[in-house]
């Protein structure tokens, strides 16, 4: 099987995961959640195979241009969603996470992102490429889960008829967002900032140069530091911290896309 066939297959399966997830809303005690979960596992395995094929064919890490990076980010998000489902039971939130995955897969499959394999420029030929990008994107996948959980938190109403049920849901979304940041923040710190500094010091002879991509990674990181500390101040949990988690992830997205397309700097490879 070639990469594009595997990629298409996983796209279709993720779509079915989302459909079966939403189907579980209708009627209680149905089989849909189980079906949806196993579909998710199989889609993940197939997408992993597609990443593996691309790595073998190209001979380099599967995240050296926009198409590859978003694809890898999507794969990481799927991994994180499955981990969170196993650990914390996402329940009704599950299909909404898959909505995001399907949107990302649609972007990945669209012709906007060129999919051809290009040789690596000299600056990218380093094992630090593997460490830096994979850990950063994995961290961002956790932050993406926190982002979605925070949106769910804000959009879950107080609906007077089901007040306690909604309160319970909201508490759970707040908890999921915090746990996702608690996992994503260390990974992002390690991948983006620490490994980024080490690689920059080896490639360019300085670990920090206030390059726009570096500054935006720092800004993203500071937002999550803000998230963690505002939670320590009483009364900031819930709505305000959900807002900061959302803005923090938008900063991460800007680091990812905006800096490449809108601001020029050294990091213009991806």
């Amino acid at each position, binding site marked *: 099987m070639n990469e594009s066939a595997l990629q298409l297959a996983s796209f279709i399966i993720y779509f079915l995961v989302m459909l079966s997830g939403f189907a579980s809303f209708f009627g209680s005690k149905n089989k849909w959640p189980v079906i949806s979960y196993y579909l998710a596992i199989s889609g993940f395995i197939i997408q992993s195979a597609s990443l593996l094929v691309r790595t073998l064919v190209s001979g380099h890490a599967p995240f050296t241009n926009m198409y590859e990076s978003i694809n890898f980010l999507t794969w990481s998000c799927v991994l994180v969603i499955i981990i969170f489902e196993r650990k914390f039971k996402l329940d009704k939130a599950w299909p909404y996470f898959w909505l995001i995955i399907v949107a990302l897969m649609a972007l990945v499959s669209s012709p906007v992102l060129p999919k051809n394999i290009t*040789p690596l420029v*000299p*600056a990218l*030929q380093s094992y630090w490429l593997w460490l830096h990008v994979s850990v950063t994107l994995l961290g961002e996948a956790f932050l993406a889960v926190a982002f979605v959980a925070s949106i769910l938190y804000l959009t879950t109403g107080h609906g007077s008829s089901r007040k306690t049920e909604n309160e319970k849901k909201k508490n759970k979304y707040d908890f999921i967002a915090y746990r996702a940041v608690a996992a994503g923040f*260390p990974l992002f710190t390690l991948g983006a900032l*620490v490994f980024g500094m080490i690689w920059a010091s080896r490639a360019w*002879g300085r670990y920090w140069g206030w390059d726009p991509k570096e500054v935006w990674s720092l*800004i993203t990181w*500071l937002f999550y530091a803000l998230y963690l*500390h505002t939670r320590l101040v009483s009364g900031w949990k819930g709505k305000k911290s959900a807002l900061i988690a959302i803005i923090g992830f938008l900063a991460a997205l800007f680091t990812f896309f905006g800096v490449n397309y809108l601001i020029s700097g050294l990091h213009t490879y991806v």
Partner: protein
Amino acid sequence: MIRFLSSLRLAIILLILIIILSIIGTLLPQGETPGFYQNYFPHWSGVISGLQFDHLYRSPLFLSLAFLFLLNIIFCSIKQLPLKFKQLKGQIEFLPAGGQPVNHKKLAAGFSDWLWLLPNSLAEELRKRHYQVNIKESGGRKTLVAQKGWPGLFGPEFVHAGLIIIIIGGLISAFFSQRIPLALTEGQTVDLPGKSFSVRLDRFTTDHYPDGSVKNWKSLISIIDRGQVKEQKTIEVNRPFKYDGLNFFQMSYGFDWDRTKVELEIKDRSGMVRNLGVTVGERVQIEPEINLRLLNFIPDFGLDEKGQPVGRSAEANNPAALIQISRNGMPVYLGWIFYDHPDQARAYRQSDLNLEMSLKKFEAPLFSGLEAASDPGMNPVWLGSAVLFLGLLASFYFNFCQLAVRVEPSERPLFLASSRHHQTGFYQELERLLESRPAIAKNSARKKGRETPDE
């Protein structure tokens, strides 16, 4: 003042201000001339120059915020540490059992009974679950403190300590790091300021992929100390070389256009054609009494606002040579000739000279762009990063849990159960622990004459 300096509120304000300034720094082009800002930001250029936002990350405003942030973290840690040690030692403010949340009451009653009647069995069960247990008895009063995951208690302190070290390392770098750019052509040697050795480029090669794009640049360099080759090493992109505290990096490559050699085709009055090779700065005799001199070579010829020739880039997009011809020492011709536009010579002076010149070939030696750097702030930054990362792992993956119970005759039992991350999870764990409690005779001696909460 100290209280404000160590407060979380100041930390939040500073974080927000630093984020805002950093964003401005990425949107506003940095390091441009005052004229640039007047041109593009006419209303703001006063503010920009006043706050020195043309180099925002080194501006007094940004540096003072960073410094204030450093103070904030230091004071905050100083305030937190004694509290944390107190907590670790079990010097805890107990809440009276009655004033506790509902799900607390059952636990409070259960554990205080257990401690009162079978302290050893409770200690054993707790130890089985990896708690450190400390029981004190003094005159009828029994106090138990059990805890686990202590790295989680100090995780934030490690994170903040790592951050302090990183910021200090950054300041050291800002003041003491050194970068020396070296552009060397093959065979060239340069001395390094402040060092006893010099560096020679022996060979510079570029590898290509089959499709023609660049795969790698490699410089073979020799370290020469008092005429002797001490070491020879190949430097590649991403593979620096360290010698005597200096790191050598392969940064770039390019053509040394100031040493371009061109080939001219000269056709004279009689139609005779000949080719002439000449290097920038060189003078050659082309006829008796007639000299030709190559004054300048520009790879990408353009004109500035005043109509003066300038090089637009280092790429050979519009190569041009400035030629001067003199007869008996008197200049008779001065002008630019172009590689791509043979008929468009741009002459400044032209007397009765019947020569036709064209630029046939040009060739510049390749130079390797190396950089020698030393940065004494680097190691502190790595140390701080390691401390910070370990602190993050401790903060988030060691959940500090503490159980404290105190019982004494004719007093309400005191009970405290706290977990940094997952309070309800900890209560559930304690409820399960309570189920493993051995049977305790009802109406135990302790209960007589006292009320126990929630029974």
